[in-house]
């Protein structure tokens, strides 16, 4: 039967119509996906976590550093220790024996500073760096900087984590391997490969369900980016549309780069590991540009099924998959047969799974976060991929943790306290820049929770006394260091007919004494008398100029430290003393960078002179005497006296809080020890917090505090009992600094001093006896 022309015409028309409808449909679908692709790529491609870094650890010969601390610091920097020096084959590993560290340092590319990776030897002798040398060139190094440790991240809500890579910065072998394994014709196709699809379609039809994929790299990216994971014909079609749309709008390299950053490569708890950048550090502890061929092969091989080929769970499966990939590379001539053989015989080289904590230093991270939240929205913190460079010094942080742990154990044993009864907090800053080098919110650094360094506000006791004496010294017409003050019992009338009778620590009173002695020995009665004379508002004003920012009511008892502060607040006010009267806001963040490395914000050092140089010098001299002759003398057993440490002990009523705040020429630290329930713990400032302070400082580099008299200060030899100038030979002679014009004018030879002095001192004990008593007091405190 012949088909009539009419029928043919009808069929043709219908066919044409179908084509037009299909064409329109395809066009419609395509524009829909095209728009979607453009929109997606226009905005930020990913929510990127913010990353928080420590200071790069800088090592130089002569620097004090214990092997223990260095070992820990390397661990925090993600370096893996190897057992044999022969195993030191790739960056991010180190070998340690005795005081000799051989490390294969990672490449360094931070803040305009670049170093390649390479082998370095660091020799530590007697807890100091004896030498640093480059093992390749055998050259001695003056300074070695190691790439900064990651100390925490703020993850996006979806818990996706990635480290962005650019195609330029990855080893060439990575994209080559990817293309060889996943999509050989990547550079020539237009997003899809019709032949491969047809083949897959046939197989799928024969088997009756969609199981066979023939995805190009573009299609895989399309699937990850826009579509669900379901396997159906419709999704497959959509995927093709998206792939073609992507190819139309973007270059091959752009697609490849996006793919490298997008792909899912494993799971760490609830954190999803995305992209080759993060996978490199997650599995191998190194940067992507340091990856070896077998490592690239493993990561690319894992794309087929990241959990199925998880090298930590299924090392054999992973190894065989890796070697299959290496064989492909050999077959395609990408790697030479020798290289394939070498790579295939290498072990997997997977590092131990990283600790499942967000940060090894939660208190410090908390400090950083609170500073950030004053200026950034939380959603930006969690998604904009900011790189935050902090001032955390790994060496100091590690030493501080160690000092708190070991000293608290010792103290608990010596004072017959229950193990774990004491808590502690500590802040360490650099005196020049007022940057927080270490911060502990509790006894165990890793324990999250209550941050005593910031939120633990406790009475500061005698730590407040320098504010009282600085107020006095600021008025050189009225007060010098030897102005006689009364150390006699005092009754302070309070409202409602009540009264307050502050007592000295040991209930011994010393009569008329030169001003400086009241601070050196931390006498309460004379301090209260002086403070009341100066007036509470004047002392509060000094506190504010020292950097105390909260508004508080001042009472007579405030003069003895009935003022609650956090260790961080104490560090801020002592910093002003340490820097000679210049106030600097305390900082934990140096700078913030965008993901592409450009700088977003800097937090540079700023200073404001709040006290003139003279009074600051006089006060600091006295704070040095606190350690040399006063309440903190036992500190000399822990740190060299030549450091000239200036400091102050603090003990509160019934020994509830033990404080020590002090500084050397380069570092300031505030330590608090006490109980969370605020019950007495039986520790004075010197027997508790000061021990922690000394233990820490003894282990970290410190410059001595050498105070240089300012222009308006002159030193005179005076008889501290009479207040007159005298000859050096007098037993009560002491060289005392004065602000010019405030020095005693009368010059008396020592024979006639007592008679002419008129002011017969009322001290109950002789000097020699008193220092013996002090020694005894220290012993039994």
């Amino acid at each position, binding site marked *: 039967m012949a088909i009539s022309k009419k029928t043919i015409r009808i069929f043709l028309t219908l066919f044409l119509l179908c084509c037009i409808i299909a064409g329109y449909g395809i066009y419609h679908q395509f524009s829909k996906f095209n728009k979607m692709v453009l929109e997606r790529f226009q905005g930020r491609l990913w929510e990127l976590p913010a990353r928080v870094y420590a200071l790069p650890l800088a090592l130089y010969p*002569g620097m*004090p550093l214990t092997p223990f601390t260095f070992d820990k610091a390397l661990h925090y920097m993600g370096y893996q220790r190897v057992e044999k020096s022969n195993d030191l084959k790739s960056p991010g590993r180190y070998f340690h024996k005795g005081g000799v560290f051989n490390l294969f340092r990672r490449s360094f590319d931070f803040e305009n500073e670049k170093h390649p990776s390479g082998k370095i030897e660091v020799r530590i002798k007697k807890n100091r760096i004896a030498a640093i040398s480059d093992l390749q060139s055998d050259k001695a190094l*003056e300074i070695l900087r190691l790439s900064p440790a990651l100390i925490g991240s703020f993850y996006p809500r979806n818990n996706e984590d990635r480290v962005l890579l650019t195609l330029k910065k990855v080893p060439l072998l990575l994209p080559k391997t990817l293309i060889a394994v996943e999509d050989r014709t990547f550079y020539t196709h237009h997003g899809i490969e019709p032949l491969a699809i047809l083949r897959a379609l046939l197989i799928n039809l024969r088997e009756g369900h969609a199981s066979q994929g023939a995805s190009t790299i573009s299609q895989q990216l399309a699937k990850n980016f826009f579509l669900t994971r379901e396997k159906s014909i419709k999704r497959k079609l959509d995927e093709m549309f998206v792939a073609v749309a992507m190819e139309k709008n973007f270059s091959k390299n752009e697609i490849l780069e996006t793919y490298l950053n997008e792909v899912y490569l494993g799971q760490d708890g609830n954190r999803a590991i995305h992209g080759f950048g993060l996978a490199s550090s997650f599995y191998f502890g190194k940067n992507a540009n340091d990856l070896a061929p077998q490592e690239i092969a493993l990561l690319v091989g894992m794309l087929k099924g990241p959990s199925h080929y998880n090298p930590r769970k299924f090392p054999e499966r992973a190894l065989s998959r890796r070697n299959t990939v290496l064989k492909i590379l050999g077959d395609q001539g990408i790697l030479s047969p020798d290289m394939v053989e070498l790579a295939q015989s290498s072990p997997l080289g997977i590092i131990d799974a990283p600790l499942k904590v967000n940060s090894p230093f939660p208190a410090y991270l908390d400090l950083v976060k609170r500073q950030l939240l004053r200026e950034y929205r939380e959603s930006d913190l969690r998604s904009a991929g900011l790189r935050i460079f902090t001032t955390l010094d790994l060496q100091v942080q590690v030493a501080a943790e160690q000092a708190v742990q070991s000293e608290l154990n010792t103290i608990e044993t010596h004072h017959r306290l229950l193990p774990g009864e004491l808590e502690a907090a500590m802040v360490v800053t650099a005196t*020049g820049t007022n940057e927080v080098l270490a911060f502990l919110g509790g006894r165990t650094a890793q324990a999250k929770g209550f941050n005593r360094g910031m939120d633990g506000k406790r009475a500061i006791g005698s730590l407040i006394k320098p504010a009282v004496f600085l107020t006095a010294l600021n008025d050189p017409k009225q007060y010098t260091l030897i102005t006689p003050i009364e150390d006699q019992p005092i009754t302070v009338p309070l409202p409602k007919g009540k009264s307050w009778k502050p007592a000295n620590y040991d209930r011994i009173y010393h009569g008329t004494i030169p001003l400086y002695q009241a601070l050196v020995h931390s006498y309460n009665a004379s301090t209260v008398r002086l403070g009341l004379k100066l007036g509470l508002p004047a002392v509060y004003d000094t506190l504010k100029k020292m950097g105390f920012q909260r508004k508080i009511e001042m009472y007579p008892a405030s003069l003895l430290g009935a003022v609650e502060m956090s260790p961080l607040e104490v560090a801020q006010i002592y910093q002003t003393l340490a820097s000679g009267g210049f106030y600097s806001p305390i900082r934990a963040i140096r*700078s913030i960078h965008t993901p592409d490395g450009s700088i977003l914000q800097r937090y540079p050092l700023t200073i404001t002179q709040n006290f003139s140089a003279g009074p600051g010098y006089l006060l600091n001299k*006295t704070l040095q005497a606190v350690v040399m002759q006063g309440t903190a003398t036992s500190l000399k057993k822990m740190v060299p006296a030549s450091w000239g440490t200036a400091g102050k002990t603090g003990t509160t009523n019934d020994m509830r809080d033990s404080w020590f705040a002090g500084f050397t020429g380069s570092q300031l630290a505030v330590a608090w020890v006490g109980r969370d329930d605020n019950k007495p713990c039986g520790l004075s400032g010197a027997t508790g917090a000061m021990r922690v302070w000394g233990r820490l400082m003894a282990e970290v580099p410190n410059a001595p505090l050498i105070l*240089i008299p300012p222009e308006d200060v002159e030193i005179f030899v005076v008889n501290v009992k009479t207040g007159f100038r005298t000859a050096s030979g007098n037993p009560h002679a002491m*060289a005392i600094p004065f602000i010019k014009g405030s020095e005693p004018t009368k010059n008396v030879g020592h024979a006639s001093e007592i008679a002419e002095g008129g002011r017969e001192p009322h001290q109950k004990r002789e000097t020699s006896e008193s220092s013996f008593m002090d020694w005894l007091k220290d012993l039994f405190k």
Partner: protein
Amino acid sequence: MLFFFVAGSLLNACSTPQKVAPPKPTLPQKHAPELGEQPLPERSTGHSPGVISDLKIAAKGQMKVGELDQAFSTLERALRINPNDPVIWNMLAEIQLKRGNVEQAEQLARKSNLLAGKDKTLRRRNWGIIAQALEQRGLAGEAGAAKRRAGK
């Protein structure tokens, strides 16, 4: 027994190799103790001066080519190791003056002076910075006084 033996041999070990130092001349007058006086350090205090001078040289180079931000952070690195070097503070002051941040320039120069001790040249340079800073703030009188101290 053993203790005495060991102690004795230690004493011997200490005394034999060294020549006996001549007794120090007695001072005409006993030195008066100084408030808060610290003994001299027995050994160098750690940081090699090379590190600081390298950083200062690097910062100078960055200042020359106008990389003021980088120079400032380089000097902050130096301060972390030794905050008592008045030259570092002087350079920081200079950077702030170049940036036109005159208030900080003045403060930093004053801090440098605090540490400058007897270094008159450095003091004069700092007073020069302070004078310029005050001048730019329109404080002609104070600037004049600072200028005189700068020896200009």
